[in-house]
């Protein structure tokens, strides 16, 4: 048994007028059948990490890695055609804004059916049944109505549920969720996350959850990588995030205002240039250990 995903020495570079800019610098991590959180501020490279797994770095960006292996197969050796099969079929991705991922002039149901039939050679009736079941699984009360609706008729929370349904219908092994709930209200956010969490766990998938929100990540993940300036500065168990040691993580936690613990001035994160120079911490876990930490929660 191997890890679902192994990433070794990933670097992503963008050329700029002042020389190459390394958005992600030499990071390694692995993913088992667990929920892995990647947190960091904007510009920390967390989203780019998510995209590089799917090889979605657009030129002039350059992706370099020793290995990006999905169950032992290095994705870098695949052709673009094989890669298309991986995207969606084996690894799915949910973005922050569902409206840009959905075709505005196509019925929601048809879009999900199409996503399904692209990967599974199913008949139209089968696809429809499967789609309705999937819409029900994301707790949409009236799947028939939503099936025949257009994306603009949906609220943000509904849109994100539909995206989850669409991304999970081909039964991928890994789901990458890039800030899936940042645009939603707090109350809706919780519902959507719970739906996603339940489905991912039931299906024994691996989840990479990219977020800037430390609290959300610590609730919905097993393990967390903390990124700063393109590097992993710390990795820890999600439920132990509040005991994190790295001054950056501590600074992030402390800079949040707290309702029950009022302060006159918020603590401001004092950045240290040494953080960006320090070598990346490895986020890889031995196969056995990954499973264990997954069960520990």
């Amino acid at each position: 048994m191997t890890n679902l995903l192994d990433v070794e020495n990933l670097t992503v570079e963008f050329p700029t007028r002042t020389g190459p800019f390394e958005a992600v610098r030499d990071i390694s991590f692995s993913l088992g059948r667990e929920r892995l959180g990647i947190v960091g501020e904007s510009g920390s490279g967390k989203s780019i990490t998510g995209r590089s797994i799917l090889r979605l770095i657009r030129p002039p960006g350059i992706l370099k890695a020793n290995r990006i292996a999905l169950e032992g197969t290095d994705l870098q050796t695949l052709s673009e055609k094989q890669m298309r099969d991986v995207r969606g079929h084996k690894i799915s991705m949910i973005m922050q804004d569902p409206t840009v991922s959905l075709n505005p002039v196509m019925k929601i149901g048809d879009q999900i059916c199409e996503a399904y039939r692209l990967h599974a050679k199913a008949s139209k009736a089968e696809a429809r049944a499967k789609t309705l079941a999937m819409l029900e699984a994301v707790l949409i009360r009236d799947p028939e109505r939503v099936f025949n609706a257009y994306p603009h008729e949906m609220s943000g929370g509904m849109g994100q549920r539909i995206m989850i349904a669409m991304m999970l219908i081909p039964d991928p092994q890994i789901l990458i969720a890039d800030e899936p709930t940042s645009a939603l209200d707090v109350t809706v956010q919780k519902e959507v996350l719970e739906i996603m969490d339940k489905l991912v766990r039931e299906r024994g998938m691996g989840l990479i959850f990219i977020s800037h929100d430390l609290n959300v990540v610590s609730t919905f993940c097993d393990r967390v990588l903390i990124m700063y300036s393109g590097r992993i500065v710390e990795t820890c168990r999600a439920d132990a995030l509040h005991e994190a040691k790295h001054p950056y993580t501590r600074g992030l936690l402390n800079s949040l205002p707290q309702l029950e613990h009022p302060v006159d001035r918020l603590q401001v994160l004092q950045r240290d240039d040494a953080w960006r120079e320090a070598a990346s911490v490895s986020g890889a876990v031995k196969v056995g250990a990954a499973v264990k930490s997954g069960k520990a929660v």
Partner: protein
Amino acid sequence: MSDPAPDTAAAADPAADKRSNRGGGPASSTSPPSAMAKQSWRDWLNDDAPKSRRQAKLAAWYRAWGELRANPMAMFGFYILVALVLIAWTAPLIAPHDPFDQDLAARLRPPGSAGYLLGSDSLGRDILSRLIYGSRITLYIVALVALLAPVVGLFVGTAAGYLGGWLDVVLMRITDIFLAFPRLILALAFVSALGAGIENAVLAIVLTAWPPYARIARAETLTIRNADYIHAIKLQGASALRIITRHIWPLCISSLVIRVTLDMAGIILTAAGLGFLGLGAQPPSPEWGAMISAGRKFILDHWWVATMPGLAIFTVSLAFNLLGDGLRDVLDPKKNSK
């Protein structure tokens, strides 16, 4: 969260907030390094922290120029147009003959004959010299139209878009009326009413050319007027006139410049068409369209008389189109906004 476009490297790095806040960059001179080497000029223009308004503005221009220079096709068009301006400027110096000088003994000489590089026309005038002088007329028409039509369109479009209400309705219906006329026919009607001549041809072209600019300016204004930065300046108490002229125009101008450059070819062709129909520049004048018209009679036996000015029109039109395409890439207002 977003694509890490290289240009946002500074913005994408939250640490930049602190690092460069207090320390202040290494102090460099506040005036342009006048007598210094070329290298330091470039540094001055590329400085991330300009020291004066002038430097900031020049640096922005320099950056746009650098981008344009990276586009070989646009630069090709740009060089042709620079050459055209130089030719028009130095016409008396470089033209081998007087463009009006007739020599009936040397009529309809083919290209390459002695003294007539591009041949001569039915009255024995040197076609090359006429083309060289004709470039002045072409530039004159182009410059006048480019100055007038977009300005009218900008006024009408931004006023309609920003002020809205009945003014918008009235202005845009007038625009629609002008748009509904076939361009050349309307120009013909104007010229026949006002009399033939270059100025009247220009006027006719302007009258038919402004409505698309008004539409573009209005569409841009409609998206801009609801932007937070326009709300912000409104909350500072700026008048509608000031908002339109100082805050909306600068954003509309780039799309208009692109459109004008792309339309230039059409304008040259319309002017040439009017000349061809005998409603633009009048006979002895070496306007390119009129030259084609004059050469039409000989097109079967003496192809060069009509072909040479045709090639000139083609080259200049192509140059404008290439440059316009390049400018679109450089000036696109949507590019820097995110």
